[in-house]
């Protein structure tokens, strides 16, 4: 049950247009940082773009900004049922709160890894 909930959540979030927009922005940023000389995140004229230092800097910067994006996605778990009005139907089923929320959370963890993969330079 737990796994099935997380799979549903993953599929639900992958269909979310915000996911595609956010991941393309971050993908383009990291791509640009690695290929366009004038965009520098972490690397500089004296540091290789693929040096460990530059990669660590890029990851750090993107992680920081991506925290906000992640919050926006994960908050959706809690508010979605009341926002859409589907909540009463869910709450009348036998599912327990912990199973449901953590199942969804697991879906988001997997989803987050998906997003992370597009971010890596």
């Amino acid at each position, binding site marked *: *049950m737990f796994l*099935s*909930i997380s799979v*549903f959540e993953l*599929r*639900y979030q992958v*269909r*979310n247009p915000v996911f595609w927009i956010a991941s393309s922005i971050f993908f383009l940023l990291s791509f640009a940082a690695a290929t366009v000389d004038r965009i520098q995140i972490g690397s500089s004229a004296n540091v290789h773009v693929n040096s460990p230092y530059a990669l660590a800097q890029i990851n750090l910067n993107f992680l920081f900004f991506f925290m906000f994006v992640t919050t926006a996605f994960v908050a959706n778990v809690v508010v*979605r049922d009341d*926002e*859409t*009005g*589907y909540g*009463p*139907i*869910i*709450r*009348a*089923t*036998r*599912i*327990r709160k912990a199973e*449901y929320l953590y199942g969804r959370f697991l879906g988001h963890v997997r989803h987050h890894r998906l997003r992370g993969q597009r971010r890596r330079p």
Partner: protein
Amino acid sequence: MLTIQDLTHTYANGVRALDGVSLSVPTGMFGLLGPNGAGKSSLMRCVATLQTPTSGRITFDDIDVVVEPERLRRHLGYLPQDFGVYPRVSALDMLDHMAILKGVSDPSDRRSEVERLLVQTNLWSARKKALAGYSGGMRQRFGIAQALLGAPRLIIVDEPTAGLDPEERNRFLNLLAEIGENVVVILSTHIVEDVTDLCPAMAIIASGRIIQQGAPMSLVRELDGRVWVKTVAKSELAELQARRQVISTRLFAGRTVAHVLCDEDPGEGFERHLGTLEDVYFSALRLNSPR
């Protein structure tokens, strides 16, 4: 069998939505009839374990619903009054997900049950469309499909036909009629015909109290010979209402037809009317309204 004893619910803002409701609901279709704001939805929500009543007992077979809501939820199908759906999710995916939440864990069982319900509710051809794009009637049919998942023994449908066009309403009532006779189905509605069409047992609720209950046929029979009708002009109506017990007035081709409750022939051109459930409903409301 569902038994409700002396159920009272007061909301945080002081509104007393339910005031000592006692009901016993046998298996089969049970109609709960009442005007808007009578407490139907509050009662339905209490039985569906969504809110804990202030006081009173609800038991379903051997389950004490207030104490062990989780046990009831295993046997419950609930269609709320108005519900939204998740965006970008198809009926097929949502039903499959609901089946998981309702504990149908075997994948092949789940698939066959979901497919059977999609066919039964006539949503098969639209199963891959997003629910958010469904019309009101289709959404309501999806609602009953999810309520029927997992072989529930208690099905609660809260005002399912409000806002449906006549054809969709018919289709929906037919769906309800197909539900087996061995489960308890509570249908709350403010539309008298829904009850007339479907329910062998019913209750009328107003201002949080049950004001009448029984079988529709016998309730109608009790009124037999006591309902009289007359077409009156609008100007006579006020005077008639002062003198007689007018239970309802309705317009027919632009003229007012008054239904009057009277034990013997009132004369004055009144004609005897074969009572209908609507007369039962209006007379119950009329006799119990605080004046």
